């Protein structure tokens, strides 16, 4: 019985190893093709880049030049980090307030936040981009405000769920000791909320980093591009794509994500699970 079980488990390990290799194959294929001459990428995608097909780092150099890769990367990083920090700070404060102070306005805010979670972006995209233009928010700084607004629903909802579980006595003790509400919040409540902060940060960062449509519509594209926009813009007019530059940029865009993922894997997976339970 026991040996039987270990044998099936051994078999499963082998099967999953094979599947894992296949699972990584698309990414490896892109890596492979990033060293290939443009013309061969669509003609012979599965061939190894050898002999006259091999172009060293030409595709990378070309791609970086064509997309303004580092600039786009910088802006994406700025927007993502900025938005996540602002979202965490503002929405957690908001959630604490609307859970602790009960009146019509706060419960209205809560329900509108809940409601906003099921509204697809297409519903607001046109009006949102026009409003952003009118208010001169077409910059990365302005985009952070938009993200705070559009991401508030989920974040407020998750923070509210957590605040409800914090025993009131802790905050009360702080208040009796003479803390103002702001001190109470930052010295007592916020530190307790750290796990939820990580969850919210991960869910928001995953979404904002990869978002394409919102920055495309809001940002002044001539001045600022995010990574997704830069990559999509490689598909020039008339549907022609410089496959060589594309492969190079794809690899460059994936590598930081993989490094980040391997470094923070534990938090990311925990964040996803925690987010799913509450959502």
């Amino acid at each position, binding site marked *: 019985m026991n040996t039987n079980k270990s044998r099936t*488990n*051994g078999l*499963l*390990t082998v099967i*999953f*190893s094979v599947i*894992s290799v296949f*699972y990584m194959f*698309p*990414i490896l*294929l*892109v890596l492979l093709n990033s060293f290939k001459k443009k013309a061969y*990428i669509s003609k012979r*995608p599965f061939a190894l880049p050898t002999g006259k097909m091999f172009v060293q780092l030409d595709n990378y150099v070309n791609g970086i030049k064509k997309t303004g890769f580092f600039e786009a990367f910088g802006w994406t990083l700025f927007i993502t980090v900025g938005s996540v920090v602002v979202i965490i700070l*503002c929405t957690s*404060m*908001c959630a*604490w*307030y609307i859970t602790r*102070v009960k009146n019509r306005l*706060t419960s209205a*805010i809560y329900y509108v936040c809940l409601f*906003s979670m*099921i*509204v*697809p*972006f*297409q*519903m607001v995209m*046109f009006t*949102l981009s*026009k409003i952003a233009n009118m*208010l001169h*928010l077409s910059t990365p700084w302005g985009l952070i405000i*938009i993200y705070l*607004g559009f991401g*508030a*629903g989920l974040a*407020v909802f998750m923070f509210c769920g957590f605040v409800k579980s914090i025993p*009131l006595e802790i905050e*009360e003790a702080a*208040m009796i000791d003479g803390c103002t*509400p702001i001190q109470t919040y930052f010295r007592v409540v916020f530190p307790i909320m750290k796990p939820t902060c990580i969850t919210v940060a991960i869910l928001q960062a995953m979404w904002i980093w*990869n978002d*394409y449509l919102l920055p495309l519509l809001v940002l002044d594209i001539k001045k600022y591009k995010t990574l*997704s926009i830069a*990559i*999509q813009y490689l598909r020039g007019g008339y549907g022609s794509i410089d496959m060589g530059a*594309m*492969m190079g940029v*794809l690899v460059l865009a994936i590598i930081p*994500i*993989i490094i980040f*993922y391997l470094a923070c894997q534990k938090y*990311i*997976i925990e964040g*996803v*699970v925690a987010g799913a*339970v509450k*959502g």
Partner: protein
Amino acid sequence: MLCPPSRYKLPCGHIRCPKSMDTRTLEGIKKGRVTIMEKAIKKYFPVFVLPTLIAFSIGFFAPFIMGVYLSFCKFTTVTDAKFTGLSNYTKIFSDSTFGHAFWYTAAFTIVSVVLINVLAFAVALLLTRKIRGTNVFRTVFFMPNLIGGIILGYIWQLLLNGILLQFGRTLTYSSTYGFWGLVILICWQQVGYMMIIYIAGIQNVPGELVEAAKIDGASPVQILKNVTLPMVMPSITVCTFLTLTNSFKLFDQNLALTAGEPSKMSEMLALNIYNTFYGRTGWEGVGQAKAVIFFVLVAVISIAQNRLTRVKEVQQ
């Protein structure tokens, strides 16, 4: 600490009656405390709530209300809107691409929801059997989730076009290729995510329950059907919800993989709406009307799904 009786205010503002003040129930004391804390916090509305509220109004509330209003108007920018009643909505019916996009999206959503959940659940079941290398497999399967839709679209365009090349075809040869290409892509991306949620659900099933079923002589299939499945129902609710809305609202992947080619036949709803807004001048109102319908569809689907699977959940 007991508060002076004058502070015993109910949330509605009335002073508590003397009788209940005498008893000083724990509940009464708690309520008294809440109002005192509330009072202290209440003044800080501008600090705590206002920033989020303003951003929320700009980022969601105002655009939403305006969007609903504009769907009844003819306009090219927000300022030149003229009320035209339901004409935008009737125009949708004359636009055959919207109907096609709807059925295409519906078929895609059904296929991908079933495939993703079955695959993710199966993998989760196998990966909770303590086989060697579980952590590595989990890492690998989850990875595609972090890669953005646009990037994923181009990765798979390369791979699928490469395979189809052997048969002298491309992805944009017919909408069927685009359809299955998109299904494969979305499975590849989302199976890992759902798997993580299912693994957490399966690990939460109490060991005693499975043990008890075993002692009662239940076969592995019976245990799966009568113990594991009912116990992981909350995870199933969440996963079907996520896959359902993700697939229905899919945009980036669709745009990058086929961009609706050939001739809009592989266009999904979100892309169709986008193209109506930005591809045809004079049709902005119709685009907005489509968006309203799209929103109603998403809302109905998510609420109905939530009701349906929540009923099947068991109390723990």
